[in-house]
């Protein structure tokens, strides 16, 4: 079936070896070797002197993209609401933090942003003034041609107050500059025990997950998906996330955009392990997407 879904990889997948055995060039070459066409970077990780970004760095970035045949797929950034101990950022401060990243993302060629918001409780409810500062930033987002997408990640589920509030906001503002990034962690069906986590891996408590079909009515607001994976076996199958169903659903409903491989499994600190896992994951996506 024809579709406009593209394969990308998040540089985050390699975070445990970044600077130790892989630099950004190595990451981009690894991604290029998989035939993926898009890359996600995290501003605060991969821009060496963040928040400073020199013209030389920007030039170099664009040269690397050309050399490795990659396009900017998603730019990760944060509204660091508890930046200062004892108080939350004001709406004005939050907008300023957003604008700084809009400018940088724009210069680097990104149009979709994974915008992480500060939270106020264990169910990851966003800070109470999120509507104010997102609304205040919509004009800037348009100016810099970027789309803010909070990441929907377990333990959040689709049938929740949070999703309801986001959708209500999007519809009320009638904006295309705020949308969703769906992290496939929310569809996990297999038990964590299948993943083989080690004692140093950070794991949330067991939680409820969503059904893939629940995603369908939301697809029009989804600008990007985190193709989260925890373990690819030697037959190129993910062991706990129902990829076949997810990809078929996306194709069937004509969703278009980037599926960004994001590795968050065990042994990520072992040299070469994440690279091998990402390759296996891209082989699976290629098989399921037919290209």
């Amino acid at each position: 079936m024809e579709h406009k879904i593209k394969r990308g990889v998040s540089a985050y997948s390699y975070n445990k070896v970044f600077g130790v055995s892989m630099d950004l060039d190595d990451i981009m070459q690894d991604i290029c070797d998989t035939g993926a066409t898009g890359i996600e970077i995290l501003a605060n990780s991969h821009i060496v002197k963040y928040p400073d970004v020199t013209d030389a760095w920007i030039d170099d970035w664009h040269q690397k993209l050309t050399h490795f045949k990659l396009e900017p797929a998603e730019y990760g950034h944060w509204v660091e609401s508890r930046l200062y101990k004892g108080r939350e950022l004001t709406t004005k401060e939050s907008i300023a933090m957003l604008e700084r990243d809009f400018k940088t993302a724009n210069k680097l060629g990104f149009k979709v942003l994974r915008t992480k918001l500060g939270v106020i409780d264990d169910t990851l409810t966003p800070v109470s003034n999120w509507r104010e500062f997102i609304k205040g930033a919509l004009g800037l987002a348009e100016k810099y041609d970027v789309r803010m997408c909070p990441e929907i990640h377990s333990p959040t589920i689709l049938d929740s107050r949070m999703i309801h509030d986001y959708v209500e906001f999007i519809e009320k503002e009638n904006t295309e500059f705020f949308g969703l990034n769906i992290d496939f962690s929310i569809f996990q069906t297999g038990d964590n025990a299948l993943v083989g986590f080690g004692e140093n891996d950070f794991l949330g408590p067991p939680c409820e997950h969503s059904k893939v079909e629940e995603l369908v009515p939301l697809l029009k607001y989804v600008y990007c998906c985190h193709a989260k994976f925890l373990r690819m076996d030697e037959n190129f199958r993910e062991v706990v996330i129902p990829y076949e169903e997810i990809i078929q659903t996306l194709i069937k409903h004509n969703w278009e955009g980037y599926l960004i491989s994001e590795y968050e499994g065990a042994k990520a600190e072992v040299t070469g392990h994440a690279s091998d896992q990402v390759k296996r994951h891209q082989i699976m996506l290629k098989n399921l997407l037919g290209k």
Partner: protein
Amino acid sequence: MLEKECIQSRGFKNTVVDQEVVGFQFDIRLMYYRGLWLSQIRSIHIKVDGEAVRLEDISWEINGKLYKQDELKEIGDIQWNVLEPASIHVNVLGGLTTGYHDIEVDYRFSSSYMPPNMDEVLSYGNHKRKLLLVS
């Protein structure tokens, strides 16, 4: 390049100011996957050869600038980047002797997209390393 350990072997030496050894220093890298605004750094604990260092004797050198622990909390526009180790300076007249020393470090930081009750808890472990000091 970074060494995979938090405590780096490179950068461990006595600190000389105006020909006087005013202390020692060593480098640590950020074990978190993204840079921290300096105000996100909540605390650091250091032991040298089993003995705890007083907080007021510690300074952080980040991108070539020195900060006392107290100064960090107001700085929300400078990052400790993931590829740039911080140099930890410990004030102790005469520094350390030539030879191996045990260094222990634990630092914590806030992260706003995690539940607030983790603010004083978030840490990537207690780090310990035996390092050789020449002078």
